[in-house]
């Protein structure tokens, strides 16, 4: 599904290197987790994959189902099936959440040569999916993320993911700021989307989320590289001992 090869990234504006050769392969239907200390480059990796400005790829490639992502505009990547749930979802005053969702869904359908959803059909689907995420109708009417609590913003990300039905979902600390019940809702939302032709990359600091969303593979990122890859037990090791041992081994 996703194949990242020797990815090197620096900041465009300054000479600061952030990713120093990331290699990562995620097969169809797999769930991978990335853990790693603050500032190790996890969000940067997700932004670079999604196509955010401000980063310069100096080397490497990232292919989604064989197609080079790094040559595409962000909206093309989305249409190709990539989705990023932001660590910090963005507030957009003046743009209604519903308008936003419908514009996004229909833009992607159009890009893929599919017919746009009618207003009625769209409404039905959104309401249904919002209900399972316990997002009330009032929140759908408000401007995108404006005045949403931290947890509401994260649930709104999952709602978008559910509406857009991407192939490759990247979740950047979607668990942070969530209470126990909300975490369960989000995890259920993700698990409901799991399928043989959809993959997940879950960035998290905590084992807790991984109790709910069982990963197939766990990676540890440090200083812009994946320094260890293992099974779910690796997350437990981090939870119990922190990063010191793992970093020590490598460093």
């Amino acid at each position: 599904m996703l194949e990242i090869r020797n990815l090197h990234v620096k900041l465009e504006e300054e000479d600061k290197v952030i990713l120093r050769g990331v290699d990562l392969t995620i097969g169809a239907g797999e769930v991978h987790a990335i853990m790693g200390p603050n500032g190790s480059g996890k969000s940067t990796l997700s932004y670079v994959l999604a196509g955010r400005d401000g980063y310069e790829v100096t080397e490497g490639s990232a292919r989604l189902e064989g197609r080079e992502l790094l040559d595409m505009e962000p909206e093309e990547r989305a249409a190709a099936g990539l989705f990023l749930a932001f660590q910090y979802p963005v507030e957009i005053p003046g743009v209604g959440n519903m308008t936003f969702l419908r514009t996004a869904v229909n833009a992607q359908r159009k890009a893929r040569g599919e017919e746009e959803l009618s207003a009625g059909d769209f409404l039905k689907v959104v309401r249904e999916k919002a209900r399972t995420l316990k997002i009330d109708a009032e929140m759908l009417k408000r401007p995108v993320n404006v005045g949403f609590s931290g947890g509401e913003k994260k649930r709104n990300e999952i709602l978008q993911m559910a509406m857009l039905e991407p192939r490759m979902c990247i979740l950047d600390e979607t668990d942070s700021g969530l209470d126990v019940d909300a975490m369960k809702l989000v995890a259920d939302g993700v698990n409901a989307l799991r399928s043989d032709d959809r993959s997940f990359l879950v960035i998290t600091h905590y084992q807790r989320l991984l109790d709910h969303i069982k990963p197939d593979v766990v990676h540890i990122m440090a200083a812009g590289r994946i320094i260890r890859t293992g099974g779910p037990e690796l997350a437990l090791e981090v939870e119990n001992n922190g990063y010191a041992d793992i970093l020590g081994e490598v460093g």
Partner: protein
Amino acid sequence: MALPKAKEDALAARLAALPALSGKGWLAAARAEALARLQAMGLPARRDEYWRYTDPASLNAPEPLPAQRFDVTDEAAPFDGMDRLKIVFVDGVFDAAASDDLALAGVSIERLATTGDTDIHWAQGLYGTLEARGQTPVPRPLAALNSAFATDGVLIHVTGRAAKPISLVYIHKSETSDAILHHCVKLGPGAELTLLENGPAAARFSKVMEVDIADGASFHHIRIQGRDHERRAVTHLFARLGAKSELRSFTLTANGRLTRNEAVVELTGDEGRAHLAGATVGDGEFHHDDTVFITHAAVACESRQVFKKVLMNGATGVFQGKILVKPGAQKTDGYQISQSLLLDEDSQFLAKPELEIYADDVKCSHGSTSGAIDETALFYLQSRGVPRRRAQALLVLAFLAEAIEEIADEAIAEDIRARLERWLARHGSR
């Protein structure tokens, strides 16, 4: 007092190119007074206080600069489907065939050109009167020029509730047309009228509208200034409001080489309400100037100015807005916001917001900002699959929303949003 030599020469050159004034009737007297005002002021110059940001040269020049007409084929003309009374001017000349009969219940509608030579007319108490009042403290010579030389216009007297909107349609055909129109609108106590204006009008267009709104009357004004790229326009709205009366004026400007829209509003009766709003989108060779002066001369009046401009590829926006609260105008509620969204670094916004307050129990706020599009929001939208141009349009419409919300008629507001959306799909920086 004698004018400086440069101003004298400029005025002499302009006057020489204008047609002789008609010699009889009430209008002749009003014109003569206006001409005297103009001769005392001279034409505007770059050094004049309210002309620093806008060059009046092309508005002063004896001949207009040529402007190609722009045929709109991709959307219906504004207000097309509406039940309205249509009055059409082509290059400033009344087009009887294209206009409806000037008959509307509760309203008397006449043309300036056909009533000007009568001895007495209700409009003689209004024509040039509000314009003359509006000359202090800030001189507006181009308005006086208009009063002196307007060739036509409509005189509307509303006594009840107008059965439908009156719609002035300004068509631009000739590349060298130089139109001068002057309208008077008088609303009696409790009267109601919606006035629609649309179209570029001419290569160069000068328009004055004087509106007298009696106690409890309500005047709604919506204007769409056409899509011609090369036209130039200077317009003045002079309004006087009585007690518990209402003025709402909204202008959409897209394109146009030069636009100077002045509004001079005087709240003279208690609890009057004046809302002025503008949504402007400009791309490239585009200069748009909103100059507003609101005087609070009575108790508990409310005024709002909401002006939003979206500028790209070297376009310029200007806002000069003043709220004057006179002594005794207690409980004034004055709000003014002027904002621009600059889609690139070549575009600019020049603003001069002013408050002058001589009463102590007032609530006045003003704010002026100039900003770029929120790149983070743009990326967020794109990351959801929304193409950049469309994402930009969504953010721009969100930015303009506060101005569009000033339109009372939701169907018109929706139509204007759609026009803006299409404009934004056609234009973009980068």
